[in-house]
């Protein structure tokens, strides 16, 4: 078991396990945490999992864990690694099954005062228009050729089909399209699962949330993003559905048969990886990019449905019922990027699993209005608690491969949450706080109880205190649609 005294305390919020801690570590392991969050992380296997990631070939600098780190399967959730493209690896295990799971925030001009009498109606409309639950059903009807265009063109497809505005696309990570997508690397089963699920929320921890902008910390940046204190906003949290799950499953399975050929020794088979430039590595990368494009479109179609709900409920009530995109960001993805390592620019593939990009000011991919301020970062809290909008900083570029946290992070197992929390009681408690809840499964609701998660404000205190993001605005929920 890793102990607190095993870490070198680099600075107030940075803790490092040196490479010498375990014989097979290739780089050190860094954890961003307060003392309290470090102790939480030591309670489960998450730090052991972080150490395991340091054994992968070709890593540069160090493996990183964000303060919302928690135990996953293989790679910890909240982990970031960067592997040289020249001699490093790509790992489907380090991306996860829900490729491009991510968050989108939409800002409204409607005040909570205006919205309040209609929140129940809005929750019903959102629940009706945004299909939830397991498997197919409720998504948009697609021909095979259209589906292929989604996989190749991502958000550009949505723009052409009037599911998106130009601003939506500009305000999406990578403009909602990864250019490496290769549809020939997708199995029939992934295709079959994916084609019927575009525009669906799914189940598990996915949600749509209507929020109040409760606090603005940086008025200038918030104003550019369209976030005003007292107004309502909407968050969408979901990913690439069965399509991404199947691609990850296919490649994790295929790599089991070839990993020995590349002389890669794994401490955990879920960390399965192959050289980035190998045929198998490029095949996975092409399929992963297609799944990323799928997820961007999935959140875009949901955003379109949410706009229809706003029109249905607020037309004639609110002067302006439009929803403008703040940003859309991935938190399970591998991206080819250039970062400074030992004073030189090096091309790496950055794997972020339960971590987001947080590129600093000047980042050329950002729309012009965001470029002086850094990339927007969207950090949902647990159900019933606050969420945050942040912005990337120069320090995140220097220290964390331009990355920061993605959420609150769990501390309680799902088993324990089900044992100690009743879904119907939780729903009553949330409703008592004025939060309208729609959920298909009461035990699923119980598993996502706020007490199963860390304090998101503490997570934000760490990333902003460490300088790898800065606060823009805080959101609190008024309606939750649970997948």
């Amino acid at each position, binding site marked *: 078991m890793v102990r607190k005294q095993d870490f070198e305390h680099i600075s107030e919020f940075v803790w490092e396990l040196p490479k010498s801690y375990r014989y097979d570590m290739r780089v050190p392991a860094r954890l961003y945490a307060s003392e309290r969050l470090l102790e939480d992380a030591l309670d489960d296997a998450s730090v052991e999992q972080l150490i395991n990631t340091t054994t992968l070939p070709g890593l540069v600098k160090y493996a990183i864990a964000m303060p919302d780190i928690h135990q*996953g399967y*293989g790679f910890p959730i909240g982990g970031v690694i960067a592997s040289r493209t020249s001699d490093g690896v790509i790992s489907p295990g380090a991306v996860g099954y829900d490729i491009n799971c991510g968050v989108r925030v939409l800002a409204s001009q409607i005040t909570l005062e205006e919205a309040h009498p209609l929140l129940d109606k809005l929750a019903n409309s959102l629940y009706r228009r945004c299909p939830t*639950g*397991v498997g197919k059903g409720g998504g948009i009807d697609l021909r095979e050729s259209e589906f292929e265009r989604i996989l190749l063109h991502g958000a550009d497809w949505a723009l052409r089909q009037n599911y998106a505005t130009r601003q939506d696309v500009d305000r999406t990570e990578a403009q909602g399209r990864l250019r490496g997508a290769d549809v020939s690397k997708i199995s029939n089963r992934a295709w079959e699962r994916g084609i019927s699920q575009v525009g669906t929320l799914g189940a*598990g921890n996915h949600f749509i949330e209507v929020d109040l902008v409760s606090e603005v910390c940086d008025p200038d940046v918030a104003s550019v993003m369209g976030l005003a204190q007292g107004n309502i906003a909407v968050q969408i949290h979901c990913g690439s559905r069965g399509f991404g799950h199947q691609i990850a499953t296919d490649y994790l*399975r295929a790599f089991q048969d070839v990993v020995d050929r590349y002389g890669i020794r794994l401490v955990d*088979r879920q960390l399965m990886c192959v050289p980035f430039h190998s045929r198998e590595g490029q095949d996975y990368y092409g399929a992963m990019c297609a799944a990323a494009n799928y997820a961007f479109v999935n959140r875009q179609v949901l955003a379109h449905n949410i706009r229809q709900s706003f029109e249905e409920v607020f037309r004639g009530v609110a002067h302006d019922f439009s929803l403008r995109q703040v940003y859309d960001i991935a938190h399970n993805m591998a991206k080819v990027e250039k970062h400074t390592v030992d004073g030189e620019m090096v091309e790496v593939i950055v794997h972020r699993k339960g971590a987001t990009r947080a590129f600093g000011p000047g980042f050329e991919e950002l729309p012009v209005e965001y470029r002086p301020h850094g990339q927007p970062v969207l950090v949902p809290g647990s159900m019933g608690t606050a969420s945050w909008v942040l912005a990337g900083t120069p320090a995140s570029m220097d220290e964390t491969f331009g990355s920061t946290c993605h959420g609150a992070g769990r501390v309680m*197992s*799902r*088993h324990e949450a089900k044992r100690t929390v009743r879904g119907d009681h939780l729903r009553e408690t949330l409703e008592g706080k004025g939060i309208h809840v729609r959920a298909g499964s009461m035990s699923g609701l119980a598993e996502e109880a706020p007490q199963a998660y860390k304090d998101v404000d503490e997570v934000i205190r760490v990333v902003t205190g460490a300088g790898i993001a800065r606060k823009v605005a805080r959101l609190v929920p008024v309606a939750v649609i649970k997948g």
Partner: protein
Amino acid sequence: MATEPPWEEIPHTADWSIRVRGADRRALFENAARGMISLLERPQTDRPSIERRFSLQAHDDETLLVDWLTELVYLLEEEGLVFNEISVEQAVDHALDARISGRPGGRYGKHIKAVTYHLLEIREVTGGFETTLVFDV
């Protein structure tokens, strides 16, 4: 071994995990399937029952176990299959033959995204075999 349950849920921070036992590999594979399905709330459906047969082969038993359970996850998601019977008829030399039956059209409220390889190892223990599985949810 005789007094221990064929499967039990064990704590996992983010996902679901079960410990599974079986007197032989065949029983272990069968119990793993039943244990996985026990994590889900059983939905109602009155559609006619269907039957499916599987013949799977892998280079080791752990991969075979993931392959087998992954087939069932697919049926849960794509067909909403509510299982009546799960029978592993044979599991030898990293290959298995199995037969399942159930009614399609069930609407599951909870979701298993995938069966993981996380620290997966089938261990020989007194009286049979044991393994621990983690499911991404």
